């Protein structure tokens, strides 16, 4: 490709005549890789990865009604009170954060004019200060202008313990939030923070107006009338809300992005179950979109054949994995079982752990149980791409497992179960009640039997398993079993908080009421060290390497056995064009959803 041709293409992207995506597509055809093409654009003066999602309609409105179906109904629409994704999505119809996360983990600005970077002076070299430039001419639904005061107020609101905000965890790392001018805010962190894009970003970052909520900060937070009648900056204005049932909105004619949104009204109906929600979108077309399709893939495929909708998926940070307990779950020490200082009689032998890892038929689990709902994996951290370790491999090999156990001296007894020094390889394998999990348990039990390991399968009701009830022995944080399987979620495209499950100071104990995040109780000084280093490391490449190191330590010790990297799944009408991201709310780009004619 000639240099002047290239330059004209770059300037076409710069002027907005050509999309970034089609530029990269052209470059790929000419033999350039996508990151290289991205670099070309960056050097050509086009900001890096700030593409807005594709949007075809040429005017706002005219799209008719948009009907969404959530099988768990929205129960509240104040983003700072949200207890789950249903509430975050409900709030996202009316409120917007400074920026959101796309499916590749890039930041896309909403209320910000641009994404802070070292080049534009938004990020300080010491990593402790972030300056956000706010978009001008943004108006709240009641006509008031959106300013830096609102941003500062959200910080004050969230960190006040009396408010009882569920988002407070994302704001406590801030020393202060200062208003520089009406359209600039400066965030000062208590310490250098490589992952600075948490406060005011994504699902925890939706901004509520100061002039509406100002009086209701702290203990009076529950009394704010706007908790039920939101006034936001979002693409749709509030019409009606019945908690646990229906949420309705209408097009915001003064929305700050021209020609958006496309639909005239929006409606989120809730209730029922996931299967019939899928049916209402895919088969009968009563609704346009259904969220969180936790339905077996077979069922969805049958609906899709000749239907009016389809299933869409996107990778997420959720991981279904197994913990092998290296502490002793059957002896009580200092009033707790699985005490961090105790030793498991047999699982402390690395050979046994390695053998069990070889007995998990991940490919079958993916093919026959999860389908499009997940991908078999050997890694704990799977996304975004730069944090996924290239070093881990998984294998299903019963012969090899048998050989390893033979070599380690575990002999088969009369009942076919291996033993050494009178200790048998008999384990209790626990998980929550959830049909795919019980099927996975059965597959693993079968393979283990062939290698002389006996598994007793145990399933606990999800409400008990995931509760924080200190008195109940069956909660997942207690780990009163030899093996345990569940999904843990990585809500952001940065694994720092996610990986605190691997550090020694987070071990779940009786002392911290089993609220510590390290449930496996396995500790490695190198992992601690890598985590501490990563918390300070400002170079993204080195930081990723440290997280990969932690992943590798735990996975190669066979203490954490990843099984399936889950994908987010939704059902969507054939004509609807949404933008789906695994790192933000489903409705994160609701403004640019449209219907194809």
């Amino acid at each position, binding site marked *: 490709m000639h240099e002047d041709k290239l330059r004209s293409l770059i300037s076409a992207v710069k002027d907005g005549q050509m999309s970034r995506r089609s530029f990269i597509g052209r470059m790929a055809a000419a033999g350039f890789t996508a990151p290289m093409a991205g670099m070309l654009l960056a050097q050509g003066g086009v900001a890096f990865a700030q593409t807005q999602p594709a949007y075809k309609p040429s005017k706002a409105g005219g799209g008719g009604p948009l009907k969404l179906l959530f099988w768990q109904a929205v*129960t509240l629409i104040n983003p700072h009170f949200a207890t789950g994704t249903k509430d975050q999505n409900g709030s996202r119809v009316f409120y917007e954060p400074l920026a959101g996360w796309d499916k590749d983990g890039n930041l896309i600005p909403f209320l910000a004019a641009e994404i802070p970077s070292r080049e534009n002076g938004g990020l300080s070299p010491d990593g402790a200060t972030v300056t956000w430039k706010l978009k001008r001419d943004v108006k709240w639904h009641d006509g008031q202008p959106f300013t830096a005061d609102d941003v500062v107020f959200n910080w004050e609101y969230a960190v006040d*313990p009396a408010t009882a905000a569920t988002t407070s965890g994302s704001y406590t790392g801030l020393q202060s939030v200062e208003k520089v001018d009406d359209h600039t805010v400066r965030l000062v962190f208590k310490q250098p923070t490589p992952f600075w894009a948490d406060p005011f970003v994504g699902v925890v970052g939706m901004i509520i107006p100061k002039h509406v909520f100002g009086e209701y900060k702290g203990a009076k937070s529950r009394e704010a009338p706007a908790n039920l009648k939101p006034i936001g900056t979002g693409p749709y204005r509030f019409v009606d809300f*019945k908690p646990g049932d229906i949420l309705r909105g209408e097009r915001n004619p003064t929305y700050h992005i021209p020609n958006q949104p496309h639909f005239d009204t929006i409606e989120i109906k809730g209730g029922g179950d996931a299967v*019939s929600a899928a049916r209402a979108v895919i088969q009968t077309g009563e609704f346009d979109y259904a969220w969180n399709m936790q339905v077996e893939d077979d069922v969805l495929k049958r609906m899709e054949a000749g239907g009016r909708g389809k299933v869409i998926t996107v990778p997420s940070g959720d991981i279904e994995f197994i913990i092998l307990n290296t502490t002793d779950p059957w002896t009580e020490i200092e009033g707790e079982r699985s005490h961090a200082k105790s030793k498991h009689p047999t699982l402390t032998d690395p050979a046994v752990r390695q053998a069990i890892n070889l007995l998990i038929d991940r490919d079958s689990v993916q093919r026959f149980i999860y389908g499009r709902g997940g991908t078999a994996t050997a890694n704990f951290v799977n996304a975004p791409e730069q944090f996924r370790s290239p070093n881990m491999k998984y294998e299903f090999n019963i012969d090899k497992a048998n050989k390893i156990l033979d070599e380690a001296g575990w002999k088969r007894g009369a009942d076919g179960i291996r033993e050494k020094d009178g200790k048998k390889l008999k384990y209790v394998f626990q998980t929550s009640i959830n049909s795919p999990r019980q099927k996975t348990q059965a597959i693993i039990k079968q393979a283990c039997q062939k290698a002389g390991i006996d598994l007793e399968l145990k399933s606990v009701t999800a*409400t008990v398993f*995931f*509760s924080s*009830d200190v008195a109940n022995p069956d909660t997942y944080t207690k780990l009163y079993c030899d093996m345990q399987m569940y999904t843990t979620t*990585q*809500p952001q495209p940065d694994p720092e908080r996610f990986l605190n499950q691997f550090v020694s100071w987070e071990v779940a104990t009786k002392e911290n009421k089993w609220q510590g995040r390290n449930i496996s109780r396995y500790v490695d000084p190198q992992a601690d060290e890598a985590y501490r280093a990563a918390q300070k490391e400002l170079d993204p490449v080195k930081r990723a390497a440290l997280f990969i190191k932690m992943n590798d330590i735990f996975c190669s010790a066979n203490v954490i056995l990843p099984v399936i990297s889950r994908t987010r799944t939704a059902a969507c009408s054939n004509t609807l064009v949404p933008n789906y991201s695994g790192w933000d709310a489903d409705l994160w780009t609701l403004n640019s959803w449209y219907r194809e004619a």
Partner: protein
Amino acid sequence: MTDYVIRRLLIAIPSLLGISLILFTVLALAPGDPFSELATNPNIPPEVRANLREKFGLDDPILVRYLRWLAAMAQGDWGFSFASRVNVDTLILQRVPTTLFVIGSSQLLALAIALPVGIFAATRPYSVFDQIANTLAFIGFSLPTFFTGLLLILIFSIKLDWLPFVYRADIAETGWRWYWEHLRQAIMPILVLGLFQAASYTRYVRSAVLDVVRLDYVTTARAKGLSEPVVTLRHVARNALIPVVTLVALQMPAVFGGAIVTEQIFRIPGIGSLLINAMLANDTPVVMAVTFVFACLVVFFNLLADVLYGWLDPRISFR
């Protein structure tokens, strides 16, 4: 009469107190945590959850929480939902119109079918009509509502594509279209609930009428030369329906409970679905309030049935 009602109401107070104490204790002892979804999210530190529990008073002893609830309730404060932070009475009141519409219509439908069919079948026992009515009634109350509900959805929504199977309480239409849309979406749930009730009512009506139809006074009425319709409606039905009225009154609270499944299937925003979702979310104040309302309904309809009974049959006196 008035004395009787007042006495019954006074007796109801300790039983309601007892019910509320048992309900509260069972709910407090049940496993689960309204903030369990926060527990699995690494973004939310445990302190946030601890703070929420403390703010909502979940860490206090059960007795303290019960007395606090009772004191608030006595002042008309029903508490607020943990899940939506909205006052519980607001939540329940939002659901009442839909529940009344769907349950009320299905009860009317049930009676409209059961009364004529039951009476007609009883006046001609073991005729072809009676046999058919009996068989259908038997099938009707043997099939659970979740089965007939799904069956109707499968036939009318998915195969034939005639009716919507998601119920929406507020429809953005006006005039006759509003009525039409409401009717369309309500047909299936009302049919499911109504036919189920009709089946059991038919059997009751039939046996009650059969008991009466052979009594001497009926023969006397016929001997007077009264026409058959007059004998059936004036003399037989009026006396036969006394136990049926009691039964319908006693069924009312049970119907609220029985509608939970149907409401869930058709996504009807009624009280039943409020209860089930609150249970799934461990939203104790809502569960407590709704079950307590159910308890009150049972007590109230029992009293109503007794009073009605005496009014319909003056031979029964209140003492």
